[in-house]
Structure formats: structure tokens, C-alpha cells
């Protein structure tokens, strides 16, 4: 019984990480209907950027992410402005193919620069610190911080979307691109801003990816699939739905792993396919499309 309760708590905390992976993807889809096949590789890229900052400046990863975030915002802004805006239109193939190509470029670029070695972000005592919840159950501080950060990111994004003028532009382009343009919204700049913000979310996701486990240049595609599954399970168009999707995926993986360690990933995928069969539009859908 304690074992099951423990699995549920760990699963919810793992879900926080998946929600962080998924929120960036959800934001890109929500604003510019872009499905970014390079998302997982970009998270890994951000983890290497944070690693490079910690090693160069000798600072803690939590401080490094503050320095890396503006760099990544600029990369995201530029990427959308220069490359991805050209791919958006009626045809689905260009954005898919360009982000797929980008995924291969980022993966192999990282391989060239950082080799295939497993790396990890080091942050001293906090990595192994844990909080006892009574009984035999304890939760790690880093997993707990991951979930808290996921919630904070979603609160911040909802604030941006519903309380600021750029957020109004995001919602307008999302609802109707043509009318938004007629109303004088600079779509290219709006999309670039959205991608910049998505890259800041990616930086936060990358911090916890690197703190919680080893990473190497090849693990991106699997993170893309987890992020995607969380978005679809939660239903399109709602960040809180994405958080719920991440938690369901985390629970499925953790409970599957308790039955047989080899089944962790497989049970996550199967939970996703099950949701697709029962509720094709996800559990908490808001957007149509």
C-alpha cells in the first residue's frame, strides 16, 4: 500500500517534468499552429547551454539558467523570425520537414561539440536533499521544485496570455490569423515573441532535465514524444490540461516501472494510445483543431 502511494507521489512529481517539456510545445501550437519535431532536441540543446554557462563561469545551474534564458530567448526569437515563419501556411509539410531537419542538425551539432558522453548538471547538496512526508515516504527536493516550477510557469503564461498586450496578440493570431493581421498585428514579430517565450520555458525544462538525470545529445526525440503525449492527453489549448496530461503520463510510467522496470516507457505510450481511443480530443480540450 505504501509502495503504491509512493509510486503515485513520484509519478505526479515526474509529471511536473513532462508538463514542463510539454508547455513549450503547447505554446507553439497554441499561437502559431506549429508542431515542432525538434522540441526534444532543443530541450537537450538548452541543457548543454546551461552546462556550458556553469562550466565557463563556475556558477550554480540555478544561476546559470538566469543567464541562459535571455540567450535562449534570442535564439528562439531569431529561429522563428528567420526560418520558421517562412514555413507556415496551408501546407503541413514545410514546418514538419524543416523542424525534422532542425532536429537532426541540433542532435549532430551537439554530438560534434560535446561528444556522446553522458552529462549532468551539478548543484551540490540540493540534488540529494529530500523532505519526509511521514511514514516511509520521502520526496526529493528537486522533483518537488520541478512540479512547483511547472505550476509557476503555467501561472506566468496564463498571466501573459490574459493580462498583457502581447498576450492579446497571441490569442488573436491563434483565433484568426487573417483578422489579426487586418487589425494591424505584426504576425512575424508576434510569432517570434511566442517562440522566444517558448525557449525560456525550454530553458527551465532543461534545468530540471539536467538536474534529475544524465543527458546526452541523443535523448531529444524521446522527450519530444513525452511532451507530445502530455499535450494530447491533456487536450489542446489549455496549459492546465497540459499539466494534467504530464501528470497522467508520469503516473503511467512510474506505476508501469513498479510492475517491471522495462515497462516504464512502454506503459506511458500505452496510456497515451488508450486516451486516444477513449477520448480522441484529450481529457480537457479547449481548442478546436
Amino acid at each position, binding site marked *: 500500500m505504501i509502495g503504491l502511494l509512493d509510486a503515485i507521489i513520484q509519478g505526479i512529481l515526474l509529471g511536473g517534468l513532462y508538463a514542463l517539456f510539454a508547455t513549450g510545445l503547447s505554446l507553439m501550437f497554441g499561437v502559431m499552429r506549429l*508542431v515542432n*519535431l525538434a522540441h526534444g532536441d532543443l530541450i537537450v540543446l538548452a541543457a548543454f547551454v546551461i552546462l556550458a554557462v556553469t562550466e565557463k563561469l563556475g556558477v550554480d545551474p540555478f544561476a546559470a539558467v538566469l543567464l541562459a534564458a535571455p540567450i535562449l530567448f534570442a535564439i528562439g526569437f531569431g529561429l522563428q523570425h528567420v*526560418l520558421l515563419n*517562412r*514555413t507556415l501556411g496551408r*501546407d*503541413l*509539410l*514545410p*514546418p*514538419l*520537414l*524543416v523542424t*525534422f*531537419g*532542425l*532536429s*537532426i*542538425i541540433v*542532435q*549532430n*551539432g551537439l*554530438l*560534434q561539440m560535446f561528444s556522446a558522453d553522458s552529462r549532468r548538471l551539478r548543484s551540490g547538496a540540493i540534488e540529494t536533499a529530500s523532505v519526509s512526508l511521514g511514514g516511509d515516504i520521502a520526496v526529493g527536493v528537486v522533483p518537488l521544485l520541478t512540479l512547483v516550477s511547472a505550476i509557476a510557469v503555467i501561472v506566468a503564461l496564463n498571466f501573459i496570455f490574459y493580462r498583457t498586450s502581447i498576450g492579446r496578440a497571441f490569442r488573436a493570431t491563434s483565433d484568426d490569423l487573417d483578422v489579426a493581421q487586418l487589425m494591424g498585428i505584426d504576425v512575424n514579430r508576434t510569432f517570434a515573441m511566442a517562440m522566444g517565450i517558448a525557449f525560456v520555458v525550454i530553458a527551465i525544462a532543461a534545468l530540471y532535465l539536467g538536474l534529475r538525470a544524465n543527458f546526452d545529445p541523443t535523448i531529444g*526525440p524521446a522527450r*519530444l*514524444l513525452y511532451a*507530445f*503525449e502530455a499535450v*494530447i492527453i491533456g487536450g489542446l489549448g489549455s496549459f492546465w490540461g497540459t499539466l494534467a496530461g504530464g501528470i497522467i503520463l508520469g503516473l503511467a510510467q512510474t506505476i508501469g516501472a513498479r510492475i517491471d522496470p*522495462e515497462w516504464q*516507457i*512502454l506503459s506511458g*505510450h*500505452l496510456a*497515451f*494510445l488508450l486516451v*486516444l*481511443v477513449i477520448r*480522441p480530443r484529450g481529457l480537457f480540450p479547449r481548442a478546436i483543431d
Partner: protein
Amino acid sequence: MDPGTAKPKQIFRIATAHGVSRPAAAIACIVLLGLVLLPTFAGRNLIQDLIFLFYMLALAQCWNLLAGYAGLISVGQQAFVGLGGYVLFALTLVAGLNPLLAIPVAGIVSAALALPTALIVFRLRGAYFAIGTWVVAEVYRLGFAQVKALGGGTGTSLTPSVTASVPGIEWIKTLLDVRTPAARDIASYWLALALVVGTLAFVYFLLRSRQGLALGAIRDREAAAASLGVDITSIKLAVYVATATMTGMIGALIYLQKARISPDAAFSVLDWTAYVIFITVIGGIGTIEGPIIGAVVFYLMQRYLADFGAWYLILLGTLGILVMLLAPRGLWGLLSRRYDLTLFPTRRRLETEPDE
């Protein structure tokens, strides 16, 4: 009314053959004959290279039919390559079936599993369909990694008795006076050639048929095709199952030739989907000629640049992006527009001539 001012009556005809397409058909027959006879004089390296070229081309034709015509952009066709390979290994190693028989059975199994797969992934549209198919391929990979009889996560090899039991190897040995390994390659070469010609013929005649007209309409604009009475869902389902069948058979052949299988290699998104997508897009998506050109370009790049490892893949990714942005119809699109070329006449054109 004055008869002199009436518009002359015209005769309208629907034609497909155009310009160079008739001489091209003759040349294609000669090239095919040359390829059939090639093992009698070519070296073993060329034979092995061409086997690789043939199965990449066959996979690209399947993906082109799926994505270029039916609008089903799948990033998960490695599911059927791996499935076909594993079915071949299971049937030959465990059930003792002849490999030549196992190839069509692999196709049937792929079709049988493509149907329930489609029921799930067809619930996703557009780009989400793409990632959904990838998830399914991962499920297949992780599933086969659990099958201990086929080596689990590390995979397994075909025994020499299986690889030598392809019919005709003895015949090739005496006919061409070669040793067993070379004879195996030649048998695989002819099988791969037969499969690629079969795939091309299937795609070509499908596109010239009534269903092909519907597929072309879906490619050009789905909503308009639907409004003209094209049953989009059933055509897409049929194309998905048909390409899964062919992809499964190609996968079986690939792993008969490789004689060693593992889940990570057999369900590799890079080898069996990324390369195939780049071949199709660089050559020209939505045409039969495009993947052929793309396969040749890819083969040359692989041959001369693959030693550069990661840089080669970065180059391939960059090339794919550039083609998509600057020449979305690919190399064949550039050529055919400039010189008005058609090698595989699948497009129906309206010809008019005045009535005498």
C-alpha cells in the same frame, strides 16, 4: 445566325502520355534489362550498393504515396520495416519457413497490424498524426525488445542454414560460377530489383486508375476533392494499409540481406524514415520521378560523404531544409518545369483539336 461566325466545333481528348514519356518508357525497359543482367559482369560491391539503393527507393516510393498523395505525413514507417524484419526472423528461425515465403507473409502481417494501428492514429490529424505514428513505432520497438525468443533488446542473427535456404542460390552458384556469399547477394539483388519494380508498377498503375485521380485531387486540395464526392477516409485508409504491406515486405527483405536484427536498428527513425523523407523531398514529393532522383542523390552522398559522420547528417538536414524553403517541389520539380518533362505519365491533360 451566320454559320461563318459560329465557333468551330472542337474535339476534346484526355491524354496522359506526353513529350518524352514514350521514348522514356523504351529507355526504362532497356535500363531494366541491363539491371537484370548486371550480376553477370558487375562486382560484389556494386551489387551490394545497388541493393541498398533499391530498398531505399522502394521505401521512398511508399512514403511518397502516403505523404505526397494521400496527405498522410507519417514519421513512423519504421514500425513496418521493423515489423517485416521481425516477422521474417520469427518465421524462419522459430517456425522454419522458407525465407522467400516469409517475405509475402511479412506483408500480410504488416497489413493486419496496420488496420488497428490506423484506427488509433487516424484520430490524430495533420502534424499530430505524424508524431502519433512515431509513438506507435516506439511501441512496436519496445514490444519486440520484450520478445526473448528473438533476442530481446540485443536482437538476434539468422543461422547460415536459413540464409542459404533462399531458393536459387545453388542455381546462381553454378550459373555465374560464384561462391555462396556472392550468390546470396545476387539473390538479394534480384529480389530487391523485383520489389522495387513491383512497387513502382503498383504506384504507377494506381495513379493512372480512377483511385489515382482521386488521390491526385486529395494531394492538390483535400476539401475540394471531398466536395466532388471523393471518399477521403476510405482512400486514405486503403493507401495506409497498402503502403504498410509493401513497407513490411521491404523490411523483411532488408533484414534477410542483413541477417542480423535488433529493435534499435530495425525500428530506427533515422534509417527508415528520416532518410526516406529526405530522399522524397530532395527529389520532389508528389511525383514518381522525384524519389528516383532523390534516391540516386542520397546514394551518392551516402557513398562519398558518410565517412564524415555527424557533419554528413548536418549537411543532409540543411539540404532538406533548403530544398523545402527554396524549391518545395524538389530537384525533379525544377527539371520538369524547365524542360516540360514527364517520365511517368500519370497526369491527365486535356487536349483539343479542331474538328475537320
